[in-house]
C-alpha cells in the first residue's frame, strides 16, 4: 500500500534507524572478530584503538593446540572441543528427528486422550531452566555411569532439541491439508507408505528448518556440557573456559575460539536461511 510520493526525509530517517539497530546487534560480533586478530596487549590497551597490526598467533595457538604463556606452554584442546560439538549436536538432532517427526505427525493428525496434555508437557521442557535440573541430573548420571559419555549428553540434549522439533514440525503438519494424504490412501497405499512418500517429502522445509534450529541450540548449550561432561567430551562452549588461565585471561584466544565456533553454524544458517524463514513461519502448503 503506497501513499503519496514517499517523503525523502521519512526515508532517510528510516535508513538511519535501521543502521543504528544493525550496529547495536552486530557490534559485539564485530568487536570479537577484531579481538581475535589482536594480541592481549592490544586488546587491553586504553583507549581501545581500531588500528593495530593484526596477528594470527591466536588462531595458530588454538589450532595447533599449544599456547605459549608466561607460565609455560599449555595444552589447548580446542580442536577436540570442536569435534565434540559437532558430534553432540549432530547426534542429538538425528535422535530428535527420529523420534520427533513421527511424534509430531501423531500429534498433528490424531486425536487421542490426553494428547494435548502430553504435547504441552513435552513442549514445557523447553521452558524449564536447565540450572534447575542439572544438579539432580548429575547425581543420577553418576549412579547410571553416564557421566562424561556421549550417550548421556545426547540424551540430555533431547531436552533442548526434541521440543523444538516437535513444536515446529507439528505446526507444519497441521498446516498441510490432510486431503493429500487421504487421496494417497484412497489410491491404494498403506498409511506407512503415505507417511514416507507423501507426508515427509511435503514437510521437508519444516523439518529442515526445525533441524537447523535444533542444531544451533544444541551447539550453543553451555550448562549441561559444563556439569555433565569432563575435559575430553566438552564442546566449544565450555572449552572456551580453558583460556581463563593461571597466568591471566587469554582474551585473544577466547575471541579466536568464538570466531571459530560461530563459523559452522553461521555457514549452515546462511546456506539455509530461506528454509529457516519458511519453516519458522510454519509453512503454508496448499492442497
Amino acid at each position, binding site marked *: 500500500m503506497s501513499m503519496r510520493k514517499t517523503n525523502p526525509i521519512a526515508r532517510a530517517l528510516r535508513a538511519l534507524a535501521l543502521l543504528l539497530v544493525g550496529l547495536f546487534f552486530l557490534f559485539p560480533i564485530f568487536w570479537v572478530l577484531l579481538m581475535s586478530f589482536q594480541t592481549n596487549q592490544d586488546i587491553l590497551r586504553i583507549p581501545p584503538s581500531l588500528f593495530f597490526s593484526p596477528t594470527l598467533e591466536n588462531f595458530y595457538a588454538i589450532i595447533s593446540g599449544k599456547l605459549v604463556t608466561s607460565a609455560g606452554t599449555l595444552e589447548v584442546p580446542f580442536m577436540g572441543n570442536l569435534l565434540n560439538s559437532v558430534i553432540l549436536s549432530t547426534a542429538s538432532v538425528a535422535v530428535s528427528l527420529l523420534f520427533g517427526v513421527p511424534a509430531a505427525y501423531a500429534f498433528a493428525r490424531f486425536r487421542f486422550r490426553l494428547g494435548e496434555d502430553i504435547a504441552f508437557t513435552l513442549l514445557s521442557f523447553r521452558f524449564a531452566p536447565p540450572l534447575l535440573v542439572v544438579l539432580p541430573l548429575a547425581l543420577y548420571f553418576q549412579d547410571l555411569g553416564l557421566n562424561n559419555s556421549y550417550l548421556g549428553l545426547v540424551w540430555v540434549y533431547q531436552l533442548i532439541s526434541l521440543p523444538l522439533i516437535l513444536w515446529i514440525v507439528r505446526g507444519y503438519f497441521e498446516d498441510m491439508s490432510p486431503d493429500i494424504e*487421504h487421496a494417497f*490412501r484412497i489410491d491404494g497405499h498403506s498409511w506407512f507408505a503415505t507417511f514416507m512418500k507423501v507426508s515427509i517429502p511435503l514437510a521437508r522445509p519444516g523439518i529442515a528448518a526445525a533441524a537447523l534450529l535444533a542444531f544451533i541450540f544444541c551447539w550453543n548449550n553451555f550448562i549441561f556440557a559444563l556439569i555433565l561432561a569432563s575435559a575430553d567430551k566438552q564442546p566449544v562452549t565450555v572449552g572456551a573456559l580453558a583460556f581463563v588461565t593461571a597466568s591471566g585471561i587469554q582474551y585473544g584466544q577466547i575471541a579466536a575460539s568464538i570466531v571459530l565456533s560461530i563459523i559452522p553454524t553461521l555457514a549452515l544458517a546462511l546456506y539455509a536461511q530461506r528454509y529457516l524463514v519458511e519453516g519458522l513461519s510454519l509453512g503454508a502448503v496448499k492442497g
Partner: protein
Amino acid sequence: MSDLILDRISKSYGKTQVLSEASIEVKAGETVVVCGPSGAGKTVLLRLVAGVVEPDTGDIRIAGRSVLNVGPERRDVGMAFQNFALYPHLTAFENIASPLRARGLEAGEIKKRVDEISKLLRIEHVLGHTPRELSNGQKQRTSLARSLVRGPGVLLLDDPLRNVDAKLRYEMRLELPRLLRNFGSAVLYVTQDYKEAMALADRIAVLRAGRIEQLAPASAIYDAPESIEVARLFGDPTINLYPIRPEAEGGAAVVRLFGQTWRLPRGREAAIDRDCMLGLRPEDVRIGGDGHPGGVAFELEAVTPLNVRGVLYLRGPAGEELLATVPERDIGQFGRGHRRIWIDLPAEKLHLFDRQSGARIAPAAA
C-alpha cells in the same frame, strides 16, 4: 460395478452431531447428489464412505459386503476433492497413475490407461506439468482423472466444481453426466449448488443438520418438497414464505394474505386451523397490468436481472416482501423507480407447510 449402501450412519465430533441416522442407497451406474447448506455433514459423509473416518454407529456396504474398519486402500473407491488434493511434488501423469501404481500394474498398461483418460478429459497436453503449473480447470480435471482411472466401483466427488470459475463450472456441468455414464460406477456427489444437483443427479439426497430430509428425483424435490428447508434450498430466487392460518369458509379452505382472501385448491382441508407457512415460487407469481381483476396491488421497488429472467422486488400492502420473476424480454417495461403493479397467486402452485415441524402438508388424495 458396485452398489453402495449407507445404513443409518451416525457421526458426532465432540458435542456436535454431524450425521444422524443417514441412510442412502446408490446403485451401480446411478448418480446420487447430496445437496445441502454449508456445514460438515456432506463432506463427512464422503469421508466415511472413503474410509478415512469411521462412523459411530451404522454400516457401510460396498458390493454387498460391509467395509467398516476396512482401510481406504482396500475399498475400491475413487475420490475427487474440492481443493483437488493433487500431489504437489509429482507430475500430472504421476498423479493420475498413482492408483494404478498402488495396484502394481506394469508400466505399459499404466501409460495406456493414463493416456486414455487424459484424452477423455482433454488434459493430455499437460501431463508433464506439476500441479503448480496447471490452471484451476486443469487441476480439477487431473483430480477427476485420478479418481476415474482405476474404474472404481464407487466414485466420490466432493464439490469438485466449487473452486473452478463460473464459465468452466457451467461447461463441466454439461459434460459430467456424459462422462460419468461411461464409467458405470455408483456415484455419490456432494454440492451446495442446487442447480448442479438438479443437473447431475438421478436422485437427490437433501442433507440438513445431519439428517436426510428427502431422497428423491429432482422433480419430486422441486415440485413436492417435503419440508420448508428443502423448498428453500431449491430455486433461485428462494421461494417466498409467509406465515398463515387457513380457515374454513364456505366448504373450502381459504387463506388471508396481503389483505385478500385466497381459496386453496381442493384437498387442503387438513391445513385448516393449523399454523402454516405458505410457499410461493417466484416464477409462479402472475404479474398483471394495471387493475388486474382479482389481484393485489404491490409496490415494485427494484428490478434485478438474473440471467435469462428478471427478478421483481415487490412490497405488499402491509410491507411484506415478495420476489417474482419475469422473462428477460419483459424487464424493459418496468424502469428504475418505484411503481405499482398487480399480482395474482395461482392457487394450484401454492405449497403448504406445517409451521411447527416444517413438514409439507400434502394435498389429500382425491
